[in-house]
């Protein structure tokens, strides 16, 4: 290598190398702000969380190093595992519900036709509302006495006693699902729509000529070519649902009777209600590992099949 390096010192080449080196440095400079942001807001806090998770770290008072004790305690924390189970259940249901609504919507608005832009805007609009604001809005709509649904049904004579939707598990859970689908489906729809639009039109036309019906075209062309888009939408939906907190905190407070405690809610509870910051950090690390593993599995399942291009 050295020999080659020393023999290739002709002026034009040297200039080229210098140019490439400089470009590399300039490139690094360009990304430096982004790298700094990632360091400051992700890598360093992550390191600190990992460090905290090895400590008995109360909100107030001295903290002390306790090794893996927090992680051992997690093994016995039935409420965390219950919360995790509920989070998984919620994630499966809400993800299916979002796709069940978003995919037909995406197909509906994909092709330009009269009023398409209006529909797109209309369906997408809830996505621009923050989760906390949307939760507050829905908690008002769902309020048994002063909200919209129950009093309206009562006033119209549809029910003879006001029904508290949030008082028992099933109606409360499905109210949350409805709210999240209302809020998120529009966003997923836009992602899926871009995927649909990227499928070459001539493939579809060729299939039509070959006599393929709409279902066959969907199965053989649309779905395989949407794999990457579906993977993106799926990972976003699953990650978002695993981290669900706002709606359960604002609308239900984990109720009725702690049946809707999510994993993040439990982390919040341990950190900021019980003030066990070290334990909360350990729980966060466990959730992070689960989330990364789930995302990797999804990417692997939805990787591009061999030979398709």
């Amino acid at each position: 290598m050295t020999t080659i390096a020393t023999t290739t010192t002709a002026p034009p080449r040297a200039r080229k190398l210098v140019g490439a080196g400089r470009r590399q440095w300039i490139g690094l400079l360009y990304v430096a702000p982004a790298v700094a942001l990632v360091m400051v807001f992700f890598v360093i806090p992550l390191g600190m969380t990992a460090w905290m998770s090895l400590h008995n770290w109360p909100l107030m008072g001295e903290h002390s190093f306790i090794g893996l004790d927090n992680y051992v305690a997690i093994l016995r924390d039935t409420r965390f595992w219950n919360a995790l189970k509920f989070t998984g259940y919620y994630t499966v249901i809400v993800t299916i519900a979002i796709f069940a609504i978003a995919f037909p919507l995406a197909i509906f608005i994909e092709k330009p036709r009269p009023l398409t832009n209006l529909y797109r805007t209309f369906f997408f609009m809830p996505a621009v509302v923050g989760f906390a604001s949307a939760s507050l809005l829905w908690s008002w709509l769902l309020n048994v006495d002063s909200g919209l649904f129950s009093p309206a049904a009562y006033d119209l004579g549809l029910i003879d006693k006001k029904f508290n939707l949030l008082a028992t598990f099933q109606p409360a859970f499905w109210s949350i699902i409805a709210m999240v689908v209302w809020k998120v489906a529009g966003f997923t729809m836009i992602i899926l729509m871009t995927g649909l639009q990227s499928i070459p039109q001539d493939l579809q036309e060729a299939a039509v000529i070959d006599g393929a019906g709409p279902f066959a075209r969907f199965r053989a062309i649309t779905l395989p070519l949407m794999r990457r888009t579906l993977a993106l939408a799926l990972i976003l939906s699953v990650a978002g649902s695993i981290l669900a907190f706002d709606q359960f905190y604002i609308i239900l407070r984990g109720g009725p009777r702690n049946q809707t405690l999510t994993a993040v809610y439990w982390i919040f509870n341990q950190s900021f209600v019980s003030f066990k910051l070290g334990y909360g950090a350990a729980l966060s690390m466990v959730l992070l590992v689960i989330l990364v593993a789930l995302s990797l599995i999804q990417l692997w399942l939805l990787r591009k099949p061999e030979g398709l291009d």
Partner: protein
Amino acid sequence: MRNLIAKLALATAVLGSGLGAAAADTANIWVRADGSNFMPRIVDAFNKAHKDQIKLDIIPNAEIIPKYGAAAAGGTAPDALSLDLIYTPSFAAAGQLEDITDWAKSLPYFASLSPAHVKTGTYKDHIYGLPFSADASVLIWNKKLFKQAGLDPEKGPTNWAEIAADAEKVNALGGNIKGFYFSGNCGGCNIFTFTPLIWASGGDILSEDGSKATLDSPQLRGAIDLYRSMVKKDLVPAGAQTDTGANFFAAFAAGNIGISPSGAFAIGALNTQYPNVDYGVTFLPGKDGGWSSFAGGDNFVVTKGTKKLAVVKEFLDFAYSLEGQTILAKYGSLPVRGDIAKDALKDLDPRYQIAAEAMAKGKTPYSVVFNDLINSANGPWTQMVNEVFFGDDVDGAIANAQETMQSIIDQAPQK
């Protein structure tokens, strides 16, 4: 020469006044939003009358503890804090507070200070918190609805049977009118207004020193049955089941509720914001009479190592004066000095006297994990009250709460 002397004198005077100004000190104190009515008034009165000054920050109820913890860790905690009294033991246990035992005991009126506050302010025989604001639990009833229902509007219920009977009669008025209200998903509200029913009947939910959960008492079961029977008879609005406390006061204030356990704060709030609601105030009764009350409110605690201790003491002295106690009483807190409570309340609504009397005998459970046990929206107490009032498995819910509470107590930092 005379000129020079005059100049020197002037310089000395300027210097002197400058030194005087420098000697005036400002202490920073925090209060939770519950104190946003009375706290600014008493701070203003203090600042007007004193050279030393208080700078006040009002922090949302739910944020004050985490915020204080973060500030303490970062070395930016306020000099003192008006703190929900139930937190005092855990703050003291964390080594966060200044030991003010000597000063507290030197106060000539120390023995007259609210005993429940002083008890929660004491940790391992040292005093870390002194009473600041106070709230007792009482029963309020709507006189207009009582009259319409054919009841004596001047006589509130004095035992459980009367509560149920009066609520049923008011409920019979129909429409939007309901007999009884309580926040069915709020641990804090129910420790404040439900446990006095148990205490007044001779039961308790925690042992005196906070080391044992005692949810298996028959008095608790009896009080639960009272609430359950009212829920079953539809005397309670459907919204009560999910009310996390947001409607604790508002439901009664809207004028459609016959009877509601509440706090002394309701007297000031009704008088100023809902003058059209005609209401009576009485004690929270036991099963067969008698009464009890929760002693709520704030303890005043001092951050360990503050350099403004002198100002803080000066402020607390002022708050304990007749003038300070009168300002507090006028704007929503009961007096915390028993010896001058009557004087502080003399120009106010006579219904405050009931609350003040309740306060004097008020009780506050003592625990370093009170928040985990009782106040947390996801704690065992909140979960239990919701299940036993509205659910199907009362015995299971009580047993589950008893077990969870005991395990939280057992895992708590040793006292």
